[in-house]
């Protein structure tokens, strides 16, 4: 391996400095500093309304920050667009849209194609591979409104896999899905990590947090802690970030 490759590999997947975001003058992210190394599975945790989705959207330039710098793989977002995959919250799209699983997964190829170019054989083969990888081959022709929550989420994951990205950003990929899907998605994350990819996923279920992720960022407008699970997954930190919204009697034993 030559020295150039080594420096590239040492760059953080995401590097955020002094990020502040507000909607209608109400700040929802305040002075965020965050560095996410490559090749990890990072969970972004925090209570409802903590700004987790906003953080993901800021990284993707979907919202405009008031202040701050964000680098992805050492570059500006526009330069590395094709190396990033995004899975929005499942509820962000209209599942009554007339499309099949295959149609939706194909959308993952549109970024590489750009304006006007039509998907061809290569793109179709990529889509089929991804559908197989998430175990949805039986449902490829099914209309998306006829899918269960878990199947919808797997369709979204397949669409992201098609992008063949290096950094995956996912908003609540485990929300409202069955245990089997949860396991198979985790399996895919681990495989991707094995290939040196970076997974960044919003997750607000505290119970599974430490099982799924190697690193955790605890967020509630500001960052309460970020780092390896064993350093961050602590009662004081979670309690502070979740405030009164967190029911300890139920989860205390897990956190000890």
């Amino acid at each position: 391996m030559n020295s150039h490759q080594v420096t590239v590999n040492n760059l953080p997947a995401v590097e955020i400095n002094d990020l502040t975001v507000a909607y209608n003058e109400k700040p929802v992210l305040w002075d965020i500093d965050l560095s996410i190394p490559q090749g990890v599975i990072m969970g972004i945790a925090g209570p409802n309304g903590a700004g987790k989705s906003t953080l993901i959207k800021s990284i993707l330039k979907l919202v405009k920050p008031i202040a701050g710098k964000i680098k992805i793989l050492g570059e500006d977002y526009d330069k590395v667009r094709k190396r990033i995959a995004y899975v929005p919250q499942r509820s962000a799209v209209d599942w009554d849209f007339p499309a099949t699983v295959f149609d939706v997964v194909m959308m993952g190829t549109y970024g590489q194609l750009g304006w006007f170019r039509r998907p061809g054989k290569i793109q179709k083969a990529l889509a089929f591979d991804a559908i197989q990888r998430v175990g949805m081959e039986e449902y490829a022709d099914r209309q998306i409104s006829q899918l269960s929550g878990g199947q919808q989420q797997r369709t979204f994951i397949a669409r992201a896999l098609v992008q063949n990205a290096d950094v995956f950003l996912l908003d609540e990929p485990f929300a409202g899905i069955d245990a089997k899907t949860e396991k198979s998605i985790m399996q895919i994350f681990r495989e991707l990590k094995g290939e040196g990819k970076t997974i960044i996923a919003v997750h607000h279920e505290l119970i599974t947090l430490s099982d799924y992720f190697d690193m955790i960022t605890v967020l509630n407008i500001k960052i309460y802690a970020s780092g390896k699970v064993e350093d961050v997954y602590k009662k004081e930190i979670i309690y502070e970030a979740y405030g009164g919204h967190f029911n300890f009697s139920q989860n205390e034993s897990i956190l000890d």
Partner: protein
Amino acid sequence: MISLMVLLIGLLTAIACAIPGSYLVLRRMSMMSDAISHSVLPGIIIAFLIVLDRSSPLIIIGAALSGLLMVYLTELISRSKLVKTDASIGLVFPGLFSIGVILISMQMSSVHFHEHSVLVGDITLSALNNLVIDGVDYGPKSFYILGSVILINLLFIIIFFKELNLTTFDPQLSEVLGFKNLTLHYLFMTIVSITAVASFDAAGSILVIALFIVPAATAHLFTRTVINMIIWAIIFAIISSISGFYLSIYFDAAVSGGIAVMCGVVFLITLTLVKLKAIRA
């Protein structure tokens, strides 16, 4: 002969509207299409006052511009975050529409535009307005205008098919992948404006919305892909316009009214069949 022309104009109008109508339904923009069909009025009147020919292509351009002005003003107001999008639509289009109505009542109460025909259209009038070059009669000008609009609409959807589907289904991913949602939005609104103007004679301001929305909404009840939805929307447009034409003759009513009623009837029949699980496409 005239009534055959009227039938054909109604048919072409319904087809022209059904094509962008499918995306209007999927993008949940029926309010916007209603607003555009009202807002094209001042553009039509002002362009008419300049060229004094009701079927001049310049009228289409003038009207499309005032439709886009309405989209732009709406965008400006809702960006200010002071009111919601549908409220800002409601703020802009009555203003533009009333400017049109005032212009009509001031300038030409007995000339070419009647308030009534502005509302529900006057298809017979346009069936009588023929294209004559060097003494040769080529049939109603509307045929050529509507034919061109259908062609433009089809081309638009063919060229931007993948982009339209992506930005409609998942606008966030569309932006993330580097497509410009706003550019596509304005292009699409231009298409809707042009279609609204071309349909003005046959349907007027109020009933255009039925042609835009109802056949597409009917198709949306049971179709599994966008292509099928567009095809079925066109089929429903054809059925509704032909049956609506005969309905209006039977009741001696405005043709546009008959077509709008039949759009609704077709919707109800389809809805019943879908509930009974009888169709799937």
